[in-house]
């Protein structure tokens, strides 16, 4: 158990996170010791989204990614196998790859020329014979590779912890939701590719402001995004008030805040009252011919899922613990970059088989919506930015954050077991779910303490944790 933080006297983390009352200390977001502990306890253990197979289509292709603060290389070796390596030479630590993406036969360190194959093996060391006297065992000094990697319908996830559960078990009830995010618009699994490259930028605030808000904070939209409709960025232009989202036909469903309290994954998703998929509604009114494609693929999807209830997998957005937000059109990564800095990444999916005019139209839409130049997202950046410094003060930290929206107004639905639902208006339940998992990760001595998850609020028997302070956990 890791229950104590340094600084201002040792205190229990649970004193800072009171979920029963929805009151969270600002220190959770701004304390440097807590941040250092997060890198080890969360980013050293959790499954993290690294990228997508379409970024490394051919043998030798590579692209840089991130896991926590650290840079990794996503690459496909000469035999076609995908790997994730830490981008550092095993000799003296230099980055072995300083190109954002490309194709390589080998990665040669520019410092002393240690050379690694695309499968990570150390294949070249200068002076191996004449000065290492062949006593250096090259097989022990390959690139540091993640402990586990999973290609999940095209998306590439990895963890540094060999004891982490399988990625499927890690996702729990959100398996179908991640699968959906990588389906083509006609419902074909792994049917998308990512536009290249990622948009990457620095936001001066703690990573949790973005990561714990998204897919769980619709209460912000009316105020934060008050100016967006003036720009009419939706594909339909100024029709119907200039909304930023595409027009969509109604379908009998109930949108709600859905969270796995046990696993920390959350979404603003829907339960459907009837099987099947909504009709397509024309929305690309400014781009001739684009609706034709989406209408055709929607009809195929309707046939494919005519008898299925697509709960949690046909609408909305979601967040996979700890720092990957996504939907079926965009991926938002919140990489920690110091306690007061986030490196935010945006990537966007599109049907692999869509014609060029469709890919172009969607690409232009995501660029005007998202990222640092995004007409929608730029307003978020200001609010997250200044919430951080205004929480730093000695006095400010005496006043905790309020996470009480919708507190204790949740229910379960037998159609989606394992999921807590808040659907009586805006709710911060999804943010509380992430904070609940946050404490468990921060306290855990190993994966044994946090998986299998505790059922019915009781310990799984293997856990050495639980100090009984908050019985509702």
């Amino acid at each position, binding site marked *: 158990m890791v229950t104590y933080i340094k600084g201002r006297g040792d205190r229990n983390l649970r004193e800072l996170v009171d979920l029963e009352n929805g009151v969270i200390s600002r220190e959770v977001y701004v304390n440097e010791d807590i941040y250092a502990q997060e890198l080890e306890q969360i980013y050293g253990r959790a499954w993290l989204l690294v990228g997508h197979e379409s970024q490394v289509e051919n043998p030798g292709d590579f692209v840089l990614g991130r896991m926590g603060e650290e840079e990794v290389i996503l690459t496909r070796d000469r035999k076609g196998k995908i790997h994730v390596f830490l981008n550092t030479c095993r000799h003296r630590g230099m980055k072995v790859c300083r190109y954002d993406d490309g194709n390589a036969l080998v990665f040669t360190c520019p410092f002393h020329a240690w050379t690694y194959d695309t499968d990570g093996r150390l294949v070249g060391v200068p002076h191996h014979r004449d000065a290492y006297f062949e006593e250096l065992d090259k097989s022990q000094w390959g690139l540091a590779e993640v402990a586990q990697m999973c290609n999940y319908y095209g998306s590439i996830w990895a963890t540094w912890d060999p004891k982490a559960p399988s990625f499927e078990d890690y996702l729990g009830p959100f398996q179908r939701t991640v699968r959906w995010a990588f389906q083509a618009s006609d419902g074909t699994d792994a049917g998308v590719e990512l536009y290249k490259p990622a948009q990457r930028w620095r936001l001066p605030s703690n990573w949790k402001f973005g990561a714990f808000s998204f897919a769980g904070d619709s209460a912000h939209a009316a105020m934060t995004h008050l100016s967006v409709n003036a720009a009419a*960025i939706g594909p339909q232009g100024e029709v119907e008030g200039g909304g930023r989202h595409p027009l969509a036909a109604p379908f009998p469903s109930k949108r709600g805040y859905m969270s796995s309290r046990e696993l920390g994954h959350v979404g603003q998703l829907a339960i459907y009252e009837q099987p099947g998929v909504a009709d397509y509604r024309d929305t690309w009114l400014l781009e001739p011919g684009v609706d034709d494609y989406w209408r055709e693929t929607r009809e195929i999807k309707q046939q494919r899922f005519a008898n299925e209830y697509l709960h949690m997998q046909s609408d909305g957005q979601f967040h996979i613990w700890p720092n990957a937000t996504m939907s079926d059109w965009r991926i938002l990564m919140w990489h920690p970059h110091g306690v007061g800095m986030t490196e935010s990444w945006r990537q966007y999916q599109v049907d692999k088989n869509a014609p060029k005019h469709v890919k172009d139209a969607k690409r232009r839409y995501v660029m*005007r919506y998202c990222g640092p130049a995004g*007409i929608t997202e730029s307003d978020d950046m200001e609010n997250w930015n200044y919430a951080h410094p205004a929480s730093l003060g000695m006095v400010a930290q005496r006043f905790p954050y309020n996470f009480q929206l919708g507190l204790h107004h949740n229910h379960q639905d037998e159609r989606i077991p394992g999921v807590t639902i808040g659907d009586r208006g805006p709710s911060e339940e999804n943010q509380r779910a992430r904070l609940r998992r946050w404490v468990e990760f921060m306290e855990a001595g190993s994966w044994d303490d946090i998986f299998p998850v505790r059922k019915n609020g009781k310990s799984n028997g293997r856990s050495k944790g639980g100090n009984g302070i908050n019985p509702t956990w």
Partner: protein
Amino acid sequence: MTIQSADTAWERMLLEREIERFLYDEAALLDERRFSEWGDLLAEDIHYHMPIRRNVKFGEQHRENTDTESEISWFDEGKRTLMGRVRQLNTGVHWPEEPFSRVRHIVTNVRVMSVDGDEVEVSSNFFVWSNRLRDECVMFIGTRSDILRRDSETGWKIAKRLILLDQNVLLAKVFSTFF
């Protein structure tokens, strides 16, 4: 003076001076937050493009800047969206510019690269400084390649602008001004 006649050294100098003045006036409109008037300088068919800059291997410099045909950029749009941005800035509730930042556009190294009928290709460098609230400072440095088009009734219009920002990971939290 018509552009077609810019074939003597004197005429080229006058043209370059005229273009410089246009670019300085344009910068002043942005710095003075006269965004709607700035929008009037944009041709109806403007292509406004700020690629993402990649770190690429020697010999692959052709891949350095993301292309407008298939890749993701910071900006890659036309007049409709740019005017949407202007309207957003003018709402008074666009939070990264409410209150307004103190923005200064320094435009330098102006060169007329070629003349083709009513259109001139112009290269210029920029240093955009933004100071916000108490102490937030952001610098954007880069170069632009413009196609400026002479409109006999309304003066010069920007028909194309390629903006190469000298950054890889963007070190600002937003782009809330124009370049």
